[in-house]
C-alpha cells in the first residue's frame, strides 16, 4: 500500500515539527481546523474522518492521548478500505512510539 502518515496540530492546521509531507498530506493537515471544528450540534464531536475517492483515501483522527493533535494519512486506493485503515493505524502506532 502506498501510504503516507503524519501528526498534525488540529488548531494550527499544520504538520507537527519539521515533518515534510506531500502536498496532499499538508493539505489534509491544513483543513483540520475546519474538519474537526466544534460546531455545537449533535455532530459536534467528530473524532475521525475518512474521505474516499476513486484514487485516494484521506484519513484524519484525533490523537487519543493529545486531543490538540491529529493523526493524518493519505493512501492510494489500491486495496480494500479495511486494509488501508489497518495499515494507517499500524503506521500511526509506529509514529507514536517514543
Amino acid at each position, binding site marked *: 500500500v502506498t501510504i503516507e502518515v503524519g501528526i498534525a496540530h488540529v488548531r494550527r492546521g499544520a504538520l507537527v515539527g519539521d515533518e515534510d509531507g506531500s502536498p*496532499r498530506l499538508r*493539505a*489534509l493537515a491544513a*483543513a483540520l481546523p*475546519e*474538519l474537526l471544528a466544534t460546531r455545537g*450540534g*449533535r*455532530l*459536534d*464531536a*467528530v*473524532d*475521525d*474522518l*475518512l*474521505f*474516499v*475517492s*476513486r*484514487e*485516494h483515501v*484521506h484519513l484524519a483522527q484525533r490523537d487519543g492521548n493529545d486531543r490538540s493533535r491529529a493523526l493524518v494519512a493519505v493512501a492510494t*486506493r489500491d486495496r*480494500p*478500505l*479495511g486494509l488501508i485503515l489497518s495499515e494507517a493505524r499500524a503506521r500511526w502506532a509506529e509514529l507514536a512510539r517514543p
Partner: protein
Amino acid sequence: MTSIPPSIPADAPLLVRATELLSAIEDLPEDAAGVVRYGAHGLVLIEGGAVCWAVARGMKQRLTELLRHQRNPPLPRPFMEDLFDECRRTGAHLGEALLKSGEVSETGLRTAIFRHTAEAIAHIARSGERKGLFAPHARSGYDARFVFTPPELLASLGARQDRALAAAARLELDRVRVPDASGVGFLRGAGGSLPAIVAVDRDPTLRIPDWLEVASWTAGILDLCEVFDPGGNLASGSLRDGSSVVAWRSHETYFAMCCRTRAAAALVLARLEKRTMS
C-alpha cells in the same frame, strides 16, 4: 395499484412551513395524545409523537378515492359506498372493514392513509399556519401500523419535487441499510435554503432537526471530499460516543446513514466502497 398524483407541488417555501409545522408536533410531550387544530385550516391527530391522521380544508383527494386506487383496476365506487354505509351502521372502522374484505392489503391501506395525511399536512402548511392549538383527548390506541413519524411525512412532501428520484433514493437506502443504522436521502437546497429530504428511515431517536443537521453536515463533508479529490463522493465521520455517519452522493442525491456502532459503519462503508473503486 393505480396512482393519484398529489395536488400541491412542494416548493421550497412549502417545505419550510411544513418543517416548522411538523417540528412543532415533535416538540409536544412524548406521551401527548390529542388533536392539534390549525384554525379553520385543518387538524392533525397525534399520539406518542406520531401523526395518526390529518385533514384539511380544501382537500380534493378523498380517502375513499385513495383507497379505491390501491387496486388496479380501482375498486368499484358502489363497493366502497356499500362498505362505508355498513361501517356507519355498525360503527366498524372503515380500514378494518376493508382489510377484512380482502380487497385492500395492509400495505395499501397504510399507503392510502399516509397519502391522505401528507396531503392534509401540505394544505395546512400552505395556509401559513405553523403552530396549532393542542387539545388532549382521552382516545388512544391508534394502530401502530397506520401512524407516521413527522420526518416520514416531511420526506413525502420533499419527494414531490421529483418522485422518480425519491423512489430511487428509497431503494438506495434499502440497499445500503444495515442493522443499527438509519438513513436519509436529500436534495441540496438552492442558495442556502433547507435541504429537501426525499427519503428517510423510521427512527424514533432522530427528529426533523437532527436529520436536517445530518443533511447539512453531509453536504459540507462531501464538498470537502470533492476538494481533496475531484470525484470523491464517499466520506464518514465517527463521533466520540461511538456512533458514526457515513455520507455519500449518487448524482444529485445526497445520502447519510447514521450508525449507532462502528461495526455498522464499517458494514455500510463495505457496501459502498465497491462503487468508488477505480
